[in-house]
């Protein structure tokens, strides 16, 4: 046996091959790991680049930057309050408007609609999520803002605002505190914080409703059927069984929508009016962080450019925190499921 050369060579070759394979495996593993680390790097890099770009703004304005509403390119003095306020208020409005609608859609699609209708309707709603944000912006600018200023805004200023056309304050404006200020406006056009909030709400509704619908489906049928067997109505099962069971994931889905709204640029830029002023009225134009950057970055130099970078850093931090909480809450339900 040992006189045959093949018998000696074969184990050697096999040994070499397994060593070669092990080396290739190691290299392959490293290549994959580096690619995966690039994901982290892009997140850290985005935060680092904007922080670095905004360093001179942070250095010259300090903490005052966050609370100052000045925006004066002539004297090179900037504060972040107006765009931060606009970003938070428009996103908050969007979530307030989108949550009940999304909840209704998710409820309808998971508990109410006949089976044959569920797939087409949910695909249509998801289609809404696929429309590019610039289209929302254009539609908002050319169609919705004129409609808003012709039909919705006069009603709001006359019945809720503190500056109605005929000068007579409505009962609501006289008796409910702050509401007159919120809806009083002498700005004649449709672009406003509320308009941006509404367009954003339309944009984030499909995101929130698809998360809600997905988590509603994770509720064990056993739980629902027990409640039905005790005589509960569909609404009682939804509100008393499904919602409590999925609470953390539902909140996670809402925060996910909030994260989208905070970072949205195009849909907002077109309908916000881009005014660097702080107004208590929702019907006055404003600015958001993203719209300010989109409008001013190309022409900005020196400290203004640095300020816009600093604003981008703030936006990144705000959305990061919101999305972090969202994902943590969504993960709680996944844990409960044991996946």
């Amino acid at each position, binding site marked *: 046996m040992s006189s045959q050369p093949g018998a000696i060579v074969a184990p050697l070759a096999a040994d070499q091959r397994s060593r070669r394979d092990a080396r*290739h495996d190691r290299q392959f593993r490293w290549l994959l790991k580096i*690619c995966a680390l690039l994901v982290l790097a892009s997140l850290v890099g*985005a935060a680092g680049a904007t922080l*670095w*770009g905004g360093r001179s703004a942070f250095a010259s304005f300090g903490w005052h930057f966050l609370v100052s509403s000045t925006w004066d390119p002539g004297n090179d003095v900037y504060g972040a309050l107006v765009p931060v306020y606009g970003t938070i208020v428009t996103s908050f409005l969007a979530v307030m408007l989108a949550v009940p609608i999304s909840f209704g859609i998710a409820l309808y699609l998971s508990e109410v609609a006949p089976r044959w209708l569920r797939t087409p309707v949910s695909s249509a709603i998801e289609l809404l999520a*696929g*429309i590019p944000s610039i289209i929302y912006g254009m539609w908002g600018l050319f169609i919705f803002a004129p409609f808003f200023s012709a039909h919705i805004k006069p009603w709001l200023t006359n019945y809720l605002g503190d500056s109605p056309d005929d000068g007579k304050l409505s009962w609501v404006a006289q008796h409910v505190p702050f509401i007159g200020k919120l809806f009083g406006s002498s700005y004649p056009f449709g672009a406003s914080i509320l308009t941006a909030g509404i367009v954003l709400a339309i944009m984030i509704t499909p995101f929130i409703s698809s998360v809600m619908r997905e988590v509603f489906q994770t509720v064990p049928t056993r739980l629902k059927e027990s409640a039905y067997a005790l005589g509960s109505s569909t609404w009682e099962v939804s509100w008393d069984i499904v919602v409590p069971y999925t609470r953390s994931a539902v909140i996670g889905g809402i925060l996910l929508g909030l*994260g989208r709204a905070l970072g949205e640029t195009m849909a907002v830029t077109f309908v916000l009016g881009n005014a660097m002023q702080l107004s208590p009225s929702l019907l006055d134009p404003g600015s958001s962080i993203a719209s300010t950057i989109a409008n001013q970055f190309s022409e900005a130099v020196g400290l203004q450019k640095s300020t816009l970078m600093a604003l981008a850093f703030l936006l990144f931090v705000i959305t990061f925190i919101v999305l972090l909480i969202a994902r943590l809450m969504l993960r709680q339900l996944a844990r409960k499921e044991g996946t």
Partner: protein
Amino acid sequence: MGALYLRRRITNWLALGLSMLATLIGLGFLGWILWDTLMRGISALNLRLFSTITAYGNEGGLANAMVGSLIIDLLGIAIATPIGVLAGTWLAEYAHHTKLGETIRFFNDILLSAPSIVMGLFVYTIIVLPSTALTHGNTTFSGFAGGVALALIALPVIVRTTDEMLRLVPSTLREAALSLGVPQWKLTTQILIRAARSGIVTGVLLALARISGETAPLLFTAFGNNFMTLNPMEKMASLPQIIYQYANDPGDKMHALAWAGAFVLTMFVLLLSLASRLILSRNKVSHD
């Protein structure tokens, strides 16, 4: 029929009615937006749109923007696909239950919804500024920078789909190959990725649909160009950026061009996402 029973029934009908109303409102806005985009877009469509460049303004078309968009989008996908597929493979095959793997998966999900304008500024800082300094201002904004910015937006989508699709591949396939002595890199590249191919392609299409509608990151990277260029090292126009520019223009003819561009863009994006969703619906995976 007691009063309590009646009240519960009325509450139930009211709530279910409201949920139907909410769905109708959602569908109504979808119809409203699509209707206007279709009507105004189609009425502004003509051949000039595809044959003339934006340098002619009112009398021009959008040919250079469409070509630019195509180049920038494909660049973005070409950069993001290999990195995304490899990273997703690492998450699914090598780091399923490790701390680093969980961390990267978690932050990838956050990156999915990170503000795109910040990604644009990031690429502006790492590509546009250095190339301006290195070439003494000869190369500033470029189609390449735009492609990198879009790649950063496409990356998390591809990572996530690859990760989920690979985890759907039955482990018997892995065990069978390993028991034959196949090295792991061969198992991964030639068996697992091949088995999950249709799902991964879907993820890439979804990513393409997502980035082709992005405007904000292109404003400070590809910038725009009124002339036709195929060179990715030059400033480059893109469809979303031209729509943004024309919609902000006071002229009515510019608005018509913007609507035509919006129509072409919407059709492209919706067809892409419809196609990918059709493939996806066969493999049940979530994509929030």
